[in-house]
Structure formats: structure tokens, C-alpha cells
């Protein structure tokens, strides 16, 4: 029964897309309303709750002292995890991270890492011995599509101005005391599109993702760089389509960035 209803909804979405329309009345290149609420978890060094339409994502950062990689003895590092909680959708299951959760986390990670948004040298405590490792995890609380962008926004808002814990003389963290904040040098914003009925749709909902032939995400910075790209799902894009999405990505990214700075 359920899948029959879903099939109907999906075919409706394809039909509308062909006419240049969307089921929620948005323009094809229109993002849903979104909001950022920062510092929602006191135990975290930084945290943010992002609402994008009906999609809700919560992110938090914990900083730990770790040993640097041998090939970069003076650099700290980050690790990003994504989890779609069974709380967020009847389709989500608990257990080991699924392939799509891993993909989302890695795309979000690449956008932030490759844009050099974080000064990893600044996260060095003692060269060759101790560096900061930032563990950022985001959780989907309600899933209605485009976890990529909601997750990326939550991650960025969380890193920006996150607190760095204070260390004692043995490089052990002093609980609930802080010494400085993380300053992002760039704000790389991820923008995700899907292709439905031959049309490009920005910020897809759950049903639009179900109807999608192909998906594309691009991470753009304020100084004109692209920091990460990812094409997903079976279908394909033409070069013209990709170029269109890159341009849109820069345009939408600039708007999103303003909100992240304000948050």
C-alpha cells in the first residue's frame, strides 16, 4: 500500500517537473526556508540545529587531543560523521552507518577540508606529539530530503566560533574551561540539486529525491572557488547542466553564507 502511494506521489512530481513546477509550489531554483539555532548543547564545544523546510539536523563538535599523522606532524585534523536516526524517518534503521550516511559525511567533510576553511596548523599543540582532533557528528532528527546541504550548513555553523578547550600542563583537557575559538578562514557552502523529468531542481525534498534521476552537489566559497563536487544516483548530466548548477551554487551559496555568519 505504502509503496503504491509513494509511486503515485513520485509520478506526480515528475509530471509537474516537466511543466517546470514543484509540488510545494517552489520555483525550480528556490531553496526552502531555513534557520540556524546555535549553541544548543552545553557539553559540546560547538553545536547547531538546522531546519531546512521539514528537514531537521543537529550537529555538535567535541575536541580531543590526539597524535598527529606522521606525514603532517604540525597539523590537527577533523573527522565528520553523519547519522540518520530511526527517530527521523520510518525508513531509517539503527545499526552500522549505511552507504548513503557515509557518502553524505564524506562530501560534507571534503567541502570543509579541501576549501582550507580550517587552519589545521592552528590546531597543532606540540609538533610531532599532540594536535587537536575535532570530531563533528551530525544527526538527522527529521528527514525530508537534502540531508547533504542541511548537514553541511550545520557542520559549518558548528565549527564557526566553536570553543577550544583549555589544556593543563600535561596536555589534558580541563573540563568546562576554554581557551580561544575556531575561526573559519572560508565558508564553503554545499548546494545540492537533483534532475527530475529532465529539469534541475535545487534543494530536493524526500519525494523529489525519490523521483530523481541524478543528483549533484557543489561546495562553493566566497572567493570564487569550488571546493568539492559529487554526482550521485544512476542518471547523468550534460556539461551545460553542470555549468548551470555551478553558477546557481555560487549564487545560492552567497545567500546561505550570510545566514551562517549572522547565526
Amino acid at each position, binding site marked *: 500500500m505504502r509503496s503504491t502511494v509513494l509511486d503515485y506521489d513520485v509520478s506526480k512530481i515528475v509530471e509537474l517537473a516537466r511543466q517546470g513546477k514543484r509540488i510545494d509550489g517552489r520555483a525550480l531554483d528556490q531553496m526552502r526556508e531555513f534557520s540556524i539555532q546555535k549553541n*544548543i*548543547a552545553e557539553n559540546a564545544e560547538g553545536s547547531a540545529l538546522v531546519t531546512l523546510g521539514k528537514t531537521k539536523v543537529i550537529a555538535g563538535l567535541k575536541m580531543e587531543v590526539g597524535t598527529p599523522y606522521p606525514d603532517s606532524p604540525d597539523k590537527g585534523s577533523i573527522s565528520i*560523521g553523519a547519522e540518520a*536516526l530511526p527517530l527521523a524517518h520510518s525508513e531509517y534503521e*539503527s545499526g552500522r552507518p549505511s552507504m548513503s550516511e557515509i557518502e553524505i559525511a564524506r562530501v560534507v567533510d571534503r567541502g570543509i577540508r579541501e576549501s582550507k576553511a580550517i587552519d589545521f596548523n592552528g590546531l597543532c599543540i606540540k609538533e610531532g606529539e599532540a594536535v587537536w582532533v575535532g570530531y563533528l557528528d551530525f*544527526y538527522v532528527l527529521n528527514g525530508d530530503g537534502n540531508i547533504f546541504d542541511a548537514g553541511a550548513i550545520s557542520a559549518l555553523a558548528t565549527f564557526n566560533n566553536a570553543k577550544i578547550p583549555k589544556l593543563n600542563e600535561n596536555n589534558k583537557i580541563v573540563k568546562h574551561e576554554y581557551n580561544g575559538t575556531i575561526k573559519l578562514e572560508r565558508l564553503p557552502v554545499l548546494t545540492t540539486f537533483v534532475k527530475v523529468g529532465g529539469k534541475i531542481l535545487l534543494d530536493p525534498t524526500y519525494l523529489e529525491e525519490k523521483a530523481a534521476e541524478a543528483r549533484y552537489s557543489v561546495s562553493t566559497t566566497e572567493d570564487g572557488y569550488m571546493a568539492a563536487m559529487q554526482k550521485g544516483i544512476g542518471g547523468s548530466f550534460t556539461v551545460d547542466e553542470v555549468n548551470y548548477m555551478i553558477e546557481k551554487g555560487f549564487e545560492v551559496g552567497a545567500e546561505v553564507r550570510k545566514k551562517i555568519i549572522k547565526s
Partner: protein
Amino acid sequence: MSKNEEVVVDYKKTKKRLDGRKMDEIRPLSIKAGVIPNADGSAYLEWGQNKVYAAVYGPREALPKHTANPLRAVIKAEYRMASFSVPERKRPGPNRRDMEISKVLGEALERAVFVEQFPNTEIGVYVEVVDSNAGSRVACLTAASVALADAGMPMRDLVSATGIGKAFNELVVDLDKAEEDAPDAVDIPIAILPNSEEIVLLQMDGLLTKKEWDQLVKTGIAACKKVYEIQKKALQEKFKLGEASEKLVEEKVGEKKVNTEKVVSKEANKKIKKVKK
């Protein structure tokens, strides 16, 4: 841990707790029902620094099939903590503590729901802790029962919970982390069906005399009943008539002049009066 360096507090002398509360006072508690649109029922709860989300899905087909019970619904509760919800990062994935808490929470809720009405199904109850400071399991249980009610589940009663115990030489209600770390700490998560006072969750660690228990259980039940009032308020807030249904009432009143005052909220009443004039 640097427990020994700390000054020993004595609540018998201070008469007040470290955070200024009275001995039988719970931390500020607020609940909002209906926060996760995808879920059949949900709630967000803040209790002191604890912040938890609860969502209910079902009754739905019990999967895998062998978990189904032909006589009743199975409640599958899952308690999880976000990696950033504790001072020292928690590794993702459930640990043994999470598993045990999931089990006792599900069992506590089972008594409240008329599970026999839904044979062969499962009711998924998911709770996620996003910030914590002692007492997260009772916070989760309190939120989960509001989520079940929000899902329209037939229930005997809500489940209302609190922590009780002992810290710094005094019996206290709703211990926070500093009190849980006291040298003489006793922590007892307790949950009741507030109308019948049946106990549906009870755990304890620490050393306690029977006499102390006798006193604690009384204050505990009283505290649970305060929690119950806040749970009821959250549900009343959620099921207050929305704009759409108010409009419907207005139309009906215009049509037939039905006496709807008894079932509608104050705001709707005002509107109805206007229409009547």
C-alpha cells in the same frame, strides 16, 4: 578524577543544594509535544541541562518477523546519546549501558500502553540525548510517554519519572552530575503511572537504609506527580485547536448553532461568541 581535592559539602549544614535547589525540588523542566513531523508522535524535553528528543513510529509490522507477538504489540525502545552530549566524546554506536537503558525504558512503557490491542505489531520508541547532566534516562522516559500520547496510543496513563537519592549527607530529588559524583551518592531512577502510583521503572546504585528508602519513595512519587502536570500541559498545548480547526468550528456554529464550548479551547470560544453575535 580529582574528587578528593574538592571541599566536602554537607547538605545537613548548608540546608541548600550546590545549585541552590531545595532538597525535594526538581530542576526546571519543559516539554513540547509534536516536534518531529515524520513521526506518529514526538516530544522535545529540557530538564536542567538534559535535552532529549523522543519519537514514536507505529503500531507497524513487527520486523524481523520472529520478534512479533501474536497476543500483543512489542515496544522497541532505543535510547541513544549523541557523541557531543557528554563532556568526553562518546563513540557513536550503542554501548552496553545504552542497551540496558533501552530495555528498561521499553519495559516501563509497556505497562502504560494497551499493547494487547495491537497483536503482531511493533511500536518503535526512539529517544536521542543531545545534551546531558545526570538523569537522562528519566528525562527520556518522561519524553517518550508524551510522544506515545501524542501518537494517539491508547494508554492506561502517562509514565512520569524522576531521579531520587542521596548526596552530601541528605536525601534529595533529581540529582545533578555534581551530586551523582558525591562520595555518598545514591542514585535511584524511578517512574510511576501517576494515577495508580504503580512503579514501572526502578533502579538503584549506592548504599541506602530501609528508613531512607521509605522517605525517598514518598518524595519521589510526589516529584513524579509534578512531572506529570508538566507532561499534561505539553499535551494540552499541542492539542489546543489550531487555526484550521477553529475555522471549522466557526463554520459549524454558523450552520447549526451546536454547543461546542465544552470541547474547544478558550481562544476558539471567543471566536465562537463573536460569530454568535
